[in-house]
C-alpha cells in the first residue's frame, strides 16, 4: 500500500516533466527542421511592426534634436544629416531610412557622390535590391508589408509628439527646468519617411524568445530524438499504471460523489484564470513569460489530473452516470416514470388503465405537434409514437389470441401447454396467470380422478379374485350337497336357494370386474369391420330360447342386410348381449321387442324397444349408473351393471349410447359411424 502510494506520487510528479520534455523536443525538431515555420508570416506579426516603428520613431526624434555631430550637407533648402555607420543601431537588419522634416533631413545611408542629394538618397533606398520598402509621406503609408500597411498609422501615433527644444546644450536633462522649455508639436503628417529593411527571422522578438528558451533547454533539445521515444513510453506506462491503480479499491470518497459537471466547470474556471491574467500582460518579458507558461501548464495539469482520477474511479465503480447531474436526473425520472407505469399496468381497473394510457399518448402527441410543428422531425416522432401504440395494440391482440387458444385447448381436455406469463403484456399477465392456475387445477383434478378410478378398478379386480376362490368351494359343495340323497324337503329347498345365490354371486363378481375395467377404459379393443345386422341376428339367435321362455316376440327392422361399422366384434356382442339380457329380464311378458337398424349418410342407428314389466319410477340417468336397477328392491337376478357396461363399451367403440324412458317404454338408442 505504501509502495503503491510512493509509486503513485512519483508518477504524478514525473508525468508533467516528461510531457514538457516531449513538448520541448517536438518543438525544437519542428523549428529546426520544419518549413512550416514561415518567416514571412512572422514579419507580419505585430511584434515586428512594433520594433520597426520604434526605430523609425527614434530616428525621427534624432532628427528633431539635430545632433551637431551629425555629418551633414546642404541640398538646396534642405540640410541633410547623416548618422554615421558607427552609430547605426537597430533591431531591424539592413535598415535604411531617409526622414524629412521641414527643411531638415536625416539618413543613415552613407553619403557618397550619388547620395549627396535628397533625390539621390531616395533613389538609393528605392532601388536597393532584396529589401522591403516602406514610404510614409504626409501620413500615408505605402509598404510591402501588409501589417505595416494596415497597422502603420496606429504606430505612427508615436510620431505625433511634443518635443522640447534644447536651448542650452550644456545643461544635462536632469537639471533642465521644464518651465523654460519650448515645445515643438509634431504630427506624422509633418514627416516624409523613406525606408527599407531586410526581413530576417532572428530579428523577431517572439522568435528570439523561443530560440533563447530552446538554447537554454539545450540538454533536452540536443537529445530530442532520444527523449521523445523514452519519455513517451515512460509516460504511457505511468498513465497506464495510474489508470489501473486508481480506483482499484472500488471506493469512492466524498470528492468522487460531487456531480462531475460541477467538478468539470470548476476545473475549466481554474484553468481559465491564468489565461485571463496572461491576457493583461502588455509587455513580453522573457523570464516572466516562461514562468507564466509553466505556471499555467502546472495548474492545468493538476486540475486535469484531479478530473481524470475521479473520472477513472467513477467509471471503474460503474457509477459515472450516477454521479453526474444528468445521470441523476435521468435515473430519478426513470424511477418515477416506472413507478407511474407499473402502478398503471398492474392496477386492477383495465378501463381506467386504457383511459390513462390513451391520455398520455394524446399529451405526448400534442407536445410533439407543438414543439416540432415546422420540421420533418414532427412526422418522424409522430410516426414513432403511432408505431408504438400500434405495436402495443397488436401485442395485446396477440396475447389475447394466445389466451383464446389455451382456453380452446382446455375445452378439448388438453391442459399440458402452460402459458408463458413472461411473454404477456403487463395488462394480461394476471389473466394468463389465473388461466394457468385454472388449467393446472383442472388437470390435477383429472389426474386425481383417473388415478382413483384406476385404483378403484384394481381394488375391485383384486377383491373379486379373492372372492372367487372361496366362491368356487361354495358352488362346488352346494352342488355336491344337491347330489346327496336328502330326505328332508326343507333342506332341499334351502340347498336350492344356496345354489341360486351362489350362482348369482358368481355372475355379480364377474360383472363387477368387467364394469370396473370398462369404465376406466382398461380394455384392449380389436377394431375391425363388422356387419351390425348380422351381429343383431346372431344375438337374437342366441337369445331365442330365453325370449321364448317369456313369450317375447322379437321384430327386427333393418333397411339393409349389410351395414358395416368399425367395432370390436366381441365387445360389440357384449353390448347387445347385456341389452338383450336386460330385455329378457325386465320386458313385459307376451309383448314385442323391436330392434330397428337405420342407416344414415354417415352413421347407423340401432334402437331396442320393449315394454317394461315393472313401473319405472326412476330417471334414465339414474338407470344408467352402476348398480342401479329398474326395481329398487333388487329382487330379481342381475347385477345392475349391464347397462353401465353396455354404455361404457359403446362409448369405447366410438359409439353414442342413449336411454329413453317414456312411460313403460324402455328404449335404448345407439349410434355408430359407418365403415368407410
Amino acid at each position, binding site marked *: 500500500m505504501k509502495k503503491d502510494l510512493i509509486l503513485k506520487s512519483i508518477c504524478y510528479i514525473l508525468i508533467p516533466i516528461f510531457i514538457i520534455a516531449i513538448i520541448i523536443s517536438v518543438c525544437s525538431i519542428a523549428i529546426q527542421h520544419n518549413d512550416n515555420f514561415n518567416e514571412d508570416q512572422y514579419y507580419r506579426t505585430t511584434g515586428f511592426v512594433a520594433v520597426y516603428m520604434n526605430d523609425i520613431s527614434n530616428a525621427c526624434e534624432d532628427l528633431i534634436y539635430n545632433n551637431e555631430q551629425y555629418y551633414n550637407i546642404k541640398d538646396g533648402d534642405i540640410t541633410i544629416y547623416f548618422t554615421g555607420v558607427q552609430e547605426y543601431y537597430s533591431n531591424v537588419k539592413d535598415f535604411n531610412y531617409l526622414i524629412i522634416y521641414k527643411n531638415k533631413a536625416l539618413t543613415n545611408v552613407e553619403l557618397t557622390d550619388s547620395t549627396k542629394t535628397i533625390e539621390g538618397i531616395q533613389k538609393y533606398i528605392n532601388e536597393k535590391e532584396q529589401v522591403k520598402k516602406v514610404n510614409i509621406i504626409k501620413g500615408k503609408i505605402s509598404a510591402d508589408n501588409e501589417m505595416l500597411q494596415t497597422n502603420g498609422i496606429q504606430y505612427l501615433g508615436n510620431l505625433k509628439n511634443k518635443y522640447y527644444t534644447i536651448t542650452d546644450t550644456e545643461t544635462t536633462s536632469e537639471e533642465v527646468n521644464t518651465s523654460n522649455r519650448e515645445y515643438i508639436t509634431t504630427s506624422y503628417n509633418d514627416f516624409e519617411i523613406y525606408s527599407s529593411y531586410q526581413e530576417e527571422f532572428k530579428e523577431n522578438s517572439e522568435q528570439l524568445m523561443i530560440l533563447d528558451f530552446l538554447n537554454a533547454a539545450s540538454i533536452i533539445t540536443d537529445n530530442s530524438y532520444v527523449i521523445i521515444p523514452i519519455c513517451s513510453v515512460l509516460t504511457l506506462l505511468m498513465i497506464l499504471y495510474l489508470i489501473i491503480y486508481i480506483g482499484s479499491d472500488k471506493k469512492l470518497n466524498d470528492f468522487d460523489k460531487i456531480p462531475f459537471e460541477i467538478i468539470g466547470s470548476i476545473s475549466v474556471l481554474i484553468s481559465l484564470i491564468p489565461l485571463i491574467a496572461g491576457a493583461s500582460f502588455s509587455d513580453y518579458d522573457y523570464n516572466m513569460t516562461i514562468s507564466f507558461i509553466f505556471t499555467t501548464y502546472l495548474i492545468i495539469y493538476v486540475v486535469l489530473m484531479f478530473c481524470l482520477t475521479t473520472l477513472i474511479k467513477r467509471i471503474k465503480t460503474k457509477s459515472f452516470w450516477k454521479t453526474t447531474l444528468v445521470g441523476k436526473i435521468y435515473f430519478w425520472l426513470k424511477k418515477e416514470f416506472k413507478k407511474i407505469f407499473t402502478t398503471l399496468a398492474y392496477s386492477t381497473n383495465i378501463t381506467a388503465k386504457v383511459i390513462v394510457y390513451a391520455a398520455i399518448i394524446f399529451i405526448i402527441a400534442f407536445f410533439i405537434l407543438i414543439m416540432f410543428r415546422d420540421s420533418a422531425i414532427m412526422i418522424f416522432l409522430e410516426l414513432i409514437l403511432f408505431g408504438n401504440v400500434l405495436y402495443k395494440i397488436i401485442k395485446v391482440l396477440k396475447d389475447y389470441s394466445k389466451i383464446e387458444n389455451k382456453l380452446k385447448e382446455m375445452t378439448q381436455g388438453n391442459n399440458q401447454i402452460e402459458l408463458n406469463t413472461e411473454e404477456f403484456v403487463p395488462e394480461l399477465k394476471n389473466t394468463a396467470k389465473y388461466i394457468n392456475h385454472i388449467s393446472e387445477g383442472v388437470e390435477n383434478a383429472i389426474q386425481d380422478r383417473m388415478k382413483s378410478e384406476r385404483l378403484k378398478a384394481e381394488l375391485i379386480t383384486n377383491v373379486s*379374485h*379373492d372372492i*372367487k*376362490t372361496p*366362491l*368356487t*368351494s*361354495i*358352488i*362346488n*359343495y352346494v*352342488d*355336491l350337497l344337491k347330489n346327496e340323497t336328502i330326505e328332508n324337503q326343507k333342506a332341499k329347498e334351502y340347498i336350492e336357494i344356496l345354489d341360486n345365490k*351362489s350362482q348369482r354371486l*358368481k355372475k355379480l363378481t*364377474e360383472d363387477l*370386474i368387467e364394469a370396473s375395467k370398462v369404465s376406466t377404459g382398461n380394455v384392449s379393443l380389436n377394431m375391425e369391420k*363388422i*356387419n*351390425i*345386422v*348380422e*351381429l*343383431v*341376428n*346372431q*344375438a*337374437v*339367435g*342366441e337369445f*331365442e*330360447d330365453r325370449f321364448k321362455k317369456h313369450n317375447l316376440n*322379437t321384430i*327386427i327392422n*333393418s333397411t339393409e*342386410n349389410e351395414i358395416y361399422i368399425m*367395432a370390436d*366384434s*366381441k365387445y*360389440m*356382442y357384449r353390448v347387445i348381449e347385456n341389452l338383450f339380457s336386460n330385455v329378457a329380464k325386465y320386458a313385459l311378458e307376451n309383448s314385442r321387442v323391436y330392434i330397428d337398424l337405420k342407416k344414415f349418410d354417415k352413421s347407423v342407428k340401432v334402437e331396442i324397444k320393449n315394454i317394461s314389466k315393472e313401473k319405472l319410477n326412476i330417471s334414465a340417468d339414474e338407470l344408467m349408473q352402476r348398480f342401479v336397477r329398474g326395481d329398487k328392491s333388487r329382487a330379481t337376478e342381475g347385477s345392475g351393471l349391464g347397462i353401465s357396461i353396455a354404455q361404457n363399451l359403446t362409448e369405447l367403440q366410438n359409439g353414442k349410447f342413449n336411454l329413453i324412458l317414456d312411460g313403460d317404454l324402455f328404449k335404448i338408442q345407439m349410434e355408430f359411424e359407418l365403415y368407410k
Partner: protein
Amino acid sequence: MYNILVVDDDKEIVKAIEIYLERENYQIYKAYDGNEAIKQTEENDIHLIILDIMMPNKDGIETLVEIRKSKNIPIILLSAKSEDIDKIHGLNVGADDYVTKPFNPEELIARVNAMIRRYTNFGENKEKNGVIKNGGLIIDDELKKVTIDGKNIKLTPTEYNILKFLTENKGKVFSIEEIYQNVWKDEYYAADNVIAVHIRHIREKIEINPKEPRYLKVIWGVGYKIEKL
C-alpha cells in the same frame, strides 16, 4: 383307470374335485403346491393334471413349464383370473385347456373326460372314406354320425348339414347368408336368425361350454366358423 393329479393350495377345492372325479372312476393324486406337483408327476404315472395358477412358492405357470420339459400329458389350468390375456398366456406356455374359477363342476368333468379321451385315443382312428375329422370332432358322413372326443352327438338333419358344411370348410368364416345359400341351396331374402338359432343348438350339443366354444366359434358381426384343430 386313469390317474389325475389335482393341484391347488385350497384343500377344499382339491377335495371337491376329487369327489367329482372319483365318481367318474379316476384315480386321484393330490398336491398343494408346485414342488409337490412336480414330485408327484415324477413318482406316479399321471395321465392328466388339473393345475391352479395362483399358488404359494411355485405358481402354476412355473410348474407347468417345468413339467412340460419332461412330460407331454394334458394339463388343464385352473384360475380365478378370467381375462383373455391370462388364458392366452396359459395356453401359450403349454396348457391344453383353461378353466376359470368359480367353475361349473360338470364343465370341469366334461373337459377332463374329453381331454382323456383325446389323449388316449390319439392316432387310434383309422382313415375311412366319408369321414371328416377336426381335432376331437369326427363326422362320419356315411353313417350320419357325429362324435366329439369319442362321444356320440345327436343332431337334427339341419344341424348336421350346417356342421358338416362348416367342418368341410374349417377355418373359414361364413355369414348367415352364406350358410343359408350353401346349406339350403336357396336364395336368402331377409335378415333372419334361424341359422343363428341352429348354430346355438349345435354349440350346446358339441361344446362343453357353449359360451366359450372350442369347435364352433362365433365371430360376432361376421359369421361362424369351425376352428381348425
